[in-house]
């Protein structure tokens, strides 16, 4: 059996087994199994990549599935998707690790009327959902058939809704329900639009296979493909998210539990940006070229909007959530140039953002668990003095997030700005350079809010709190996760060639080099 298929389905399979035997499992055991299966999945993906041959896609499977509507069971990974699959498996291994000795967050001191279910069961269920989400995301990144892509895309939604709805902010029951439902409605509406777009494209081109669509000649032109591309773009823009369709995001990210926030920021948003590359730019280049200026403009507006919003946040998790909108703006700007540099920037920035924002959310979640809230007012000042290692680690992630050279975040943003400078094949020079200028202002504003955040949180006169003591008794997984993430952020920052070398060979096929 194909290794890629195993890598995609193994997590969900283990999840289902854990679900069936949940009464016999302890939470920590399930979480360890989750770590193990994620690592196995990661190793399998690496093996698929290492044993690739000259074909465009590694580990390609292509068998008949639904003859009645022409759907094929078609999976494979290339240089665009491989880094994202690795990141997904890595992040879900870390989230499972954080659940091993993470005290269950379900106890609800605020609401005595709410019965608190068995905490062990609760952890097992959470691990199951993480594993299903992991499988769904790996499926999206490796799908090469539009309908298979869509099925995996949707499969991730319902588990995430449960994660936010049931394990979200224990102090705001109503808030997390509203956040979960808004997240669901926005993304489902987006993906339903995307399905309509897929149908329009598939009817015009007569195929559902992504490689065939990407290599077809002559390229699709005309009204129907253009409308289809608009529908796909809007659907993915909700997911990415592109301003002004981001409004579901801050609530969902801040109400979600730590694992939910990490997976939302690290993996979910990438489904949107990866989709923009794989099922918009690659399969409908001509309509995408028409849409590119609008996408680029919205992306840059999003960068400015998000950094201004970040300056005004009083809640750490909301701040990180808004900062994601800004970072995704750089990614979408890169995609919208439709140039090799831009696409490489998008993939690089996606991976870097997944690692860095994942790390920020791990720490924000840790703080929230200890203090019961993530608002600056409750967290207080001077974490350097109160919890040295945590403050240093957090500050490292924050500085990586602002794009300091030598860390992973730098290369994505730098390449994205460079792609705007080089204009690319579809944008107009005046527009591209205007956007470049505005995005550069965004970079400055990003630095500003990160510095303000650090000033408010880790520096200043310490405001001791009797819960500070907990911070010294660090949870083992927190240290481990932090070390691994720091290492990967530094490696990607110092040796960008590692990742660019993987991405580069696949760029021509995505941008129509095969034609």
């Amino acid at each position: 059996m194909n290794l890629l298929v195993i890598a995609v389905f193994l997590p969900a399979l283990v999840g289902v087994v854990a679900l069936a035997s949940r009464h016999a499992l302890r939470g920590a055991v399930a979480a360890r199994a989750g770590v193990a299966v994620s690592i196995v999945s990661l190793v399998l993906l690496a093996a698929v990549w290492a044993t690739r041959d000259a074909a465009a896609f590694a580990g390609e499977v292509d068998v008949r599935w639904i003859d009645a509507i022409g759907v094929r069971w078609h999976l494979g990974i290339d240089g665009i998707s491989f880094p994202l699959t690795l990141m997904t498996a890595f992040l879900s291994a870390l989230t499972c690790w954080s659940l091993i000795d993470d005290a269950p967050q379900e106890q609800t001191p605020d609401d005595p009327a709410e019965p608190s279910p068995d905490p062990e069961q609760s952890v097992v269920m959470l691990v199951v959902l993480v594993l299903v989400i992991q499988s769904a995301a790996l499926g999206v990144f490796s799908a090469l058939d539009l309908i298979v892509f869509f099925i995996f895309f949707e499969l991730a939604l319902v588990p995430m809704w449960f994660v936010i709805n049931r394990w979200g902010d224990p102090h705001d029951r109503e808030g997390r329900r509203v956040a979960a439902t808004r997240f669901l409605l926005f993304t489902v509406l987006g993906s339903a639009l995307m399905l309509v777009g897929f149908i329009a494209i598939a009817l015009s081109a007569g195929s559902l296979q992504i490689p065939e669509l990407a290599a077809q000649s002559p390229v699709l032109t005309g009204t129907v493909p253009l409308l289809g591309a608009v529908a796909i773009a809007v659907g993915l823009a909700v997911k990415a998210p592109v301003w002004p369709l981001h409004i579901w995001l801050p609530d969902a990210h801040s109400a979600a539990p730590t694992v939910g926030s990490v997976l939302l920021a690290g993996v979910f948003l990438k489904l949107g940006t990866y989709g923009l590359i794989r099922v918009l730019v690659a399969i409908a280049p001509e309509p995408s070229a028409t849409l590119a200026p609008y996408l680029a403009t919205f992306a840059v507006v999003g960068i400015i909007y998000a950094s201004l919003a970040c300056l005004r946040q009083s809640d750490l998790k909301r701040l990180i959530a808004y900062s994601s909108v800004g970072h995704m703006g750089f990614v979408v700007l890169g995609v919208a140039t439709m140039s090799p540099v831009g696409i490489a920037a998008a993939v690089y920035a996606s991976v870097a953002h997944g690692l860095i924002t994942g790390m920020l959310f791990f720490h924000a979640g840790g703080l929230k668990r200890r203090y019961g809230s993530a608002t600056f007012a409750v967290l207080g000042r001077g974490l350097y003095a109160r919890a040295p290692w945590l403050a240093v680690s957090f500050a490292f992630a924050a500085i990586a997030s602002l794009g300091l050279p030598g860390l992973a975040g730098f290369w994505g943003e730098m390449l994205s700005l460079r792609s705007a400078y080089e204009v690319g094949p579809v944008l107009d020079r005046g527009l591209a350079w205007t956007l470049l200028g505005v995005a550069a202002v965004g970079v400055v504003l990003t630095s500003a809010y990160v510095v303000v955040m650090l000033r408010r949180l880790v520096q200043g006169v310490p405001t001791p709190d009797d819960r500070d003591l907990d911070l010294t008794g660090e949870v083992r997984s927190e240290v481990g996760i932090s070390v691994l993430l720091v290492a990967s952020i530094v490696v990607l920052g110092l040796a960008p060639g590692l990742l660019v070398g993987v991405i580069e060979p696949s760029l021509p096929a995505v941008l129509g080099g095969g034609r």
Partner: protein
Amino acid sequence: MIDWDLAGAPLVVAIGAVVALMLDAFIGARSWRWPSLAGGVALGLAGLELLGPRGPDGLGLGLSLVIVLGTLMVLLSAAVMDHEDSMPPGELHFLLLASAAGAMCMVVARDFVTLIVALELLSLPSIAMVGLRRADIGAARGAWTFFLVSVVSTAVTLMGISLVYGFTGSLGFAEVLSRLGDSTAPDRAVVAAVVITVVGLLFKIGAVPFHMWIPDTYRGASIPVAAYLSVVSKAGAVGALVLVLGVPFGGYAAAWAPMIAVVAALTMTVGNIGALVQRDAVGVLAWSSIAQAGFILAPMVALGVAGGARAAVQYLAIYAVANLVAFTMIGLVRRRWGGTTFRHLTGLARRDPLGGACLSLALLTLAGFPPAVIGLVAKYAVLRPVVEAGYGWLALVMAVNVALGLAYYLPMMARILSQEGDEITVVEPSPSPPHAVGVARTSMVLGTLALVATSAYPDLILVPMR
């Protein structure tokens, strides 16, 4: 001339109806088993006859199979009512099978008279079934509403048919098609006749603005009867609509297609909004079945050009299985826990893991969400002809409604899977529960297995329904 190859299967079911009634009359003691057995055998024979070499082909076969299997599942799930003294088993099975025979005739009708007779044979027994529970004011009210709507809609259809007869001098579908083409009647008058004829059928499907009878009737009816109305009765009406729009009125697609598109859009939107505010499982399923009717109607805008009829039947078949599983489980909940409100559903999966899983999968199928891949494929199947026929706006409305649908299916599922919930005492009024409950559960599990199998291999259901 009677085409016995086509009339055979409905006739077998009709004979089964009479046998069921007679068995009940002659056995004396109130027994659920014998009428039920007679009905099951009749449906099984009818199914064999349909699949035999001389049965109908194409859409007629697909729709007849949906009707036969749907009725069989209703018949099995109706066993949960065997403890209710107010529910007479002989009459129930007689009416159920008679009505199913009507539906089976309706989908293979080739002229308007057969269509109307079959429509009456479908409607009148189902009205009686709604009001069958003795000394139940809700049932009487539901039956009364249903009766009025049925009579009015049949009268309207008859009026349309008489106009058509006036223009063409014929009642056969094929003749009407050819004669309408070269008739000298004013175009506008023909369009009016077409619209009036179709309106009657839209009543039956429960399309907006003719949907108001559905919530009342479903709530008044017993749960298996509501399941019957939502699936078998609807399948008959869908079949008739596809036939009538496709064959005799095929030349006037430009006139009716926009109307169908608007009605479909309204139906799914109103149905979904109605379902959002319900606090009772039967209410949710009643309104959601209105919304689903909109999804079934939508591909009919492309009857001629893009395989719209096939898509409508494929969607109907998938919807039928999922809806019957859901209704069967709700019937079981009512029997075991005494009600169907959301309070009774909360924590259902903890009390009954298998039932909770089946109901959740059925809801996901109706919503069109993985892991119920088949539901998603069904949505794709109906969206595709709509896009192909150039109804972009309708496709957008459908996309919005997919999201709206999830907004109530998913919270309902979350309730079922919830770890919380009040302790609900088991009310098991019948002295002999296991047998009847077991029968209903078996049919539910088989239905769920069908959903699982078709999710893995959607061709299993898509190919036979072509």
